[in-house]
């Protein structure tokens, strides 16, 4: 690869790449996103490659196979899209590949059974599917389209156009003002105005001349969240470009990509992207002949959720334990090695090039006034259509879960949604208390009902937070007391242990929750727990401890009855809490196969073959093995 010396050469390269494209060439895009990978997408990709090699399709141009990032519709994986036919195949298995190659690539016909079907309708292309129709893909536009390991593919799709515009037409201050006017707020969960943070760093650097650093926070620790992973794996250049532009605006010449250790593919793709960008001269010295020097390095996380906190990332980059520091001073004043440092989430960085390309005004038209732009969510849990979605800020929660998500499948009801991970809260679908007047949508289906707008401030008003984008749908088989306990347990393992309110307080809160899930305790304990929660909110050193009580406090606020059911009635209405449920075998359905008794670790199931078996409730440890192995679904939980 030859180094690009200036903006004009970049355009020449792009034109050359465009000219070499054949619009008639069939392209098969196989999704290798996290969900599809877990379903064996790699084998699907390999099957395509070898099928095309051996088939020798009689066509002017041989089909091109691209392994791409996440297409988004994870519950229908493995996803394969074909262009220019504009076919979207779902649930593709390696065995289906031969048929696709023969039918669609060689003969140009459709494999009907592999199309997405819902409610009797078959959908040929992705845009028609309700899951995709309500989305607005801007950050994710290239993810699932380009080959993330080939910079030429990214260039073709428009990568580095904004960088070129920045370095040739804009001053650092103009870039800064554009970001300020856009209203972009941090996408990692804090929702802090990005431009405001950048301005502070620039002012501090002016008072204290010296290096400035930029960092991408890729320590996406919230369980259930993989937005940043999809961006880093599927469109790594979006992050690079954003950081180079940011470096230019901030006067930074060195940046760091702090990527979670549990994301080796993201690290790999980012490494390739860095190498290729350097080879083309888009990173390094004198970028595009502008005189601006900037380079990036990748630092791996080491298995610590707390390192998603800004000062903990800094500590980690300095080779220390990931213990947060008291703020002030904020990283924009004194960060890495005491210098002004800007840390932004991966998704935040991925927004920058778009804002520069189309302008701040355009960005402010998306979303709602105090929360501009779009947001990527990982919509998972008890929802029909789970996966990665991108929607404008301000969409109603119900629309997100029901129209895009397809609602809760089967019998159970949509009970609540958990947002913001362990730092977030549990928001009910139906609430007796009026939520807020901040932003709301009149309900389409239920007159007089206000629906929550998914934007930073509305979410904060419910007691939860927007968070990084994890949105977990719960139905009435999920127990909020159990979920609150789950998050406390999670945080207890991840607490750095420096400050007493968090280190001791998480343990203390967990003791309360352990009691409740065992059906013990008294109603006054709920009030005590709220008070302890407030002590953590006020007393903790960092955001981990301060936000830790959120799941507990919101679940008490909206589901106090469920807590009381556990404590006073010794019942778990959702049928989850082990000490409050009983397993039994329905004698009408049991076929006497005896598989449950064979596998029961406590040897507490007895019976004779071909006759109904029975569980000894006193000895039962409620491990659920019998229910898992029963071929006729005869095990009941009550």
């Amino acid at each position: 690869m030859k180094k690009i010396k200036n903006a004009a050469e970049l355009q020449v390269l792009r034109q050359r790449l465009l000219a070499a494209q054949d619009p008639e060439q069939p392209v098969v895009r196989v999704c290798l996103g996290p969900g599809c990978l877990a379903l064996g997408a790699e084998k699907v990709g390999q099957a395509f490659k070898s099928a095309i090699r051996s088939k020798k399709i009689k066509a002017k141009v041989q089909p091109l196979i691209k392994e791409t990032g996440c297409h988004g519709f994870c519950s229908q994986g493995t996803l394969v899209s074909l262009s220019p036919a504009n076919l979207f195949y779902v649930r593709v298995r390696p065995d289906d590949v031969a048929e696709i190659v023969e039918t669609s690539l060689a003969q140009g016909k459709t494999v009907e059974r592999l199309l997405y079907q819902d409610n009797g309708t078959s959908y040929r292309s992705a845009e028609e599917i309700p899951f995709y129709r309500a989305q607005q893909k801007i950050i994710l536009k290239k993810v699932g389209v380009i080959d993330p390991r080939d910079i030429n593919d990214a260039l073709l799709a428009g990568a580095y156009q904004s960088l070129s515009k920045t370095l040739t037409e804009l001053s650092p201050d103009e870039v800064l003002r554009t970001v300020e006017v856009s209203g972009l707020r941090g996408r990692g969960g804090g929702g802090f105005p990005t431009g405001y943070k950048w301005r502070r760093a620039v002012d501090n650097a002016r008072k204290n001349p010296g290096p400035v650093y930029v960092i991408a926070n890729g320590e996406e620790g919230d369980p259930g969240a993989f937005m940043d992973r999809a961006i880093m794996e599927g469109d790594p250049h979006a992050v690079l470009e954003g950081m180079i532009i940011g470096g230019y605006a901030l006067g930074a010449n060195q940046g760091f990509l702090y990527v979670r250790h549990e994301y080796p593919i993201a690290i790999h793709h980012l490494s390739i992207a860095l190498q290729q960008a350097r080879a083309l001269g888009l990173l390094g010295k004198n970028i595009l002949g502008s005189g601006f020097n900037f380079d990036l390095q990748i630092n791996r996380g080491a298995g610590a959720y707390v390192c998603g906190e800004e000062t903990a990332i800094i500590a980690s980059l300095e080779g220390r334990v990931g213990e947060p520091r008291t703020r002030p001073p904020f990283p924009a004043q004194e960060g890495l090695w005491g210098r002004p440092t800007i840390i932004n989430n991966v998704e935040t960085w991925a927004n920058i090039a778009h804002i520069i390309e189309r302008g701040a005004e355009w960005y402010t038209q998306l979303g709602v006034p105090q929360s501009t732009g779009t947001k990527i969510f990982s919509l998972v849990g008890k929802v029909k259509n789970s996966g990665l979605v991108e929607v404008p800020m301000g969409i109603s929660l119900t629309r997100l879960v029901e129209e895009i998500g397809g609602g809760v499948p089967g019998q159970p009801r949509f009970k609540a949604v958990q947002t913001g991970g362990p730092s977030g809260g549990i928001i009910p679908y139906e609430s007796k208390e009026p939520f807020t007047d901040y932003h709301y949508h009149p309900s389409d289906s239920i007159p007089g009902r206000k629906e929550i707008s998914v934007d930073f401030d509305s979410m904060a008003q419910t007691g939860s937070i927007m968070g990084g984008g994890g949105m977990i749908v719960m139905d009435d088989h999920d127990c909020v007391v159990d979920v609150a306990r789950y998050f406390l347990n999670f945080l207890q393992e991840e607490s750095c242990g420096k400050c007493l309110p968090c280190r001791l307080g998480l343990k203390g809160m967990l003791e309360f929750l352990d009691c409740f899930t065992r059906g013990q305790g008294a109603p006054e304990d709920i009030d005590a727990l709220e008070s302890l929660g407030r002590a953590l909110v006020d007393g903790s050193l960092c955001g981990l401890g301060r936000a830790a009580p959120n799941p507990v406090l919101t679940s008490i606020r909206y589901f106090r009855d469920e807590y009381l059911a556990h404590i006073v009635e010794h019942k778990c209405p959702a049928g989850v809490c082990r000490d409050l449920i009983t397993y039994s075998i329905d004698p009408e359905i049991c076929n006497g196969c005896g598989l449950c008794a064979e596998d029961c670790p406590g040897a507490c199931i007895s019976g004779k073959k071909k006759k109904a078996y029975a569980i000894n409730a006193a000895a039962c440890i409620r491990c659920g093995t019998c229910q898992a192995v029963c071929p006729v679904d005869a095990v009941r939980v009550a």
Partner: protein
Amino acid sequence: MKKAPKTIDDILASYPPHPQNLISLLQDVQTKFNYISTEHLALICDYVGIPVTRAWSVATFYKSFSLEPRGEHEIKVCLGTTCHLKGANRLLEACERALGVAPGGTTPDLYLTLDTVKCVGACAEAPVVMVDQDYLGRASISSLKKQLKRR
């Protein structure tokens, strides 16, 4: 791509001798040797110029480092929120019973290490178990047993 480092000296030489590279060095050693031995920890400390106490606090703080040898194969049960809702902790208990080790532990023959991980991003397939680099989606006790038999 850089060639994979062969020895501890290769690993040390691939970073400048500054304390800020402590974590990267520990990671490379962990990846290459499956754990961080006393000798390697001391070599790293000498190289970057820090006392052993500092390396100790870092090596024991972060979960990805192990000071004891890990097994040849790793089973990681995902305990992310969605997996939890779909019964991951029962799956973990079943693994504990089957292998006779607690999470984080390794079987005495150093064959299998059982561990937990919080979210691998495959939530649509919850509960997920990773066996080395392979994903087992919608894992159940029986599908896990099949996977284990293969190794």
